[in-house]
């Protein structure tokens, strides 16, 4: 099974990359979009099929290395292969 981690900047944390993208979008005429925030995705592939165990381990990985919880939020999505 796969654990997909979506990492985003917390509200209030400046996202200069998002601002630059928003600027470019508006230069291209996409004026309906008022705000752009960027983030990243990390995909972990596990051998195990024990969902609870995988979530627990992924959370621990996020807290110890993958996410800077001072400025970032994350959520974990589990995808099971048939």
């Amino acid at each position, binding site marked *: 099974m796969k654990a997909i981690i979506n990492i985003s900047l917390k509200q209030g944390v*400046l996202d200069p*990359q998002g601002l630059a993208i928003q600027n470019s979008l508006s230069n291209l005429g996409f004026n309906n979009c008022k705000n752009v925030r960027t983030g990243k995705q990390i995909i972990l592939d596990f051998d195990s099929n024990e969902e609870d165990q995988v979530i627990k381990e992924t959370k621990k990985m996020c807290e110890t290395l993958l996410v*800077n919880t001072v400025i970032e939020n994350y959520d974990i999505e589990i995808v099971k292969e048939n």
Partner: protein
Amino acid sequence: MRSGVAIFPGSNCDRDIIVALKKITSKVPLKLWHKDTEFPNLDLIVLPGGFSFGDYLRCGALAARSPIIRNIKDHVSRGGALLGICNGFQILIETGILPGSLIRNKKLLFTCKETILEVQKTIENPFTKGFKDGLNLKIPVAHNEGNYFAPASLLNELDGEGRIAFKYVKGDNPDSNIDYNPNGSSNDIAGILSKNGRVLGMMPHPERAINHLHGGTDGLKFLTKSIENIIG
């Protein structure tokens, strides 16, 4: 004076700080590899600038989980002095030894230029002790993620506890439009201290201002003072 420089894959200012420390102490500092876990007690450890682990994941994130970090934490708890420069500062933030975060420069540009630092009134520390508050030092920066960011409560705490070591200032530059803060850092912060004052993280590179050919020697002035203080 026994000093050491911790080297990670991708560090690239290690040689420069070694040259600077040798120039001041006339002793070659110990080179510490990121996997080293056994080395003698030192008076000063420097985490140099560079791009440790290619800046992957987040700047300093992977270096902060290296085996040597446990020894570096022990060094600090023994009262040893620890200086993180640029990527070294980012590593200190990622280890949690220093609080807050260093995010992308406000203008999204890698910035390499001379900056003017103002020495702040701080708690007792071995790095800026003996310098007059308000003294200006001309030291260059070179980074992409040096924008110090912290919640207002932490910024107030750092300020109230006298833990802001350096701020970027305009200096006596006659051009009032000049962007003296190179990265958009909150409260113009260029360097901060740990609670006990034994750890300093700073984005500017003092080791790049130690020779007249560098365009100035304020970095040498700063490092020399720090080493005098550490020797005591």
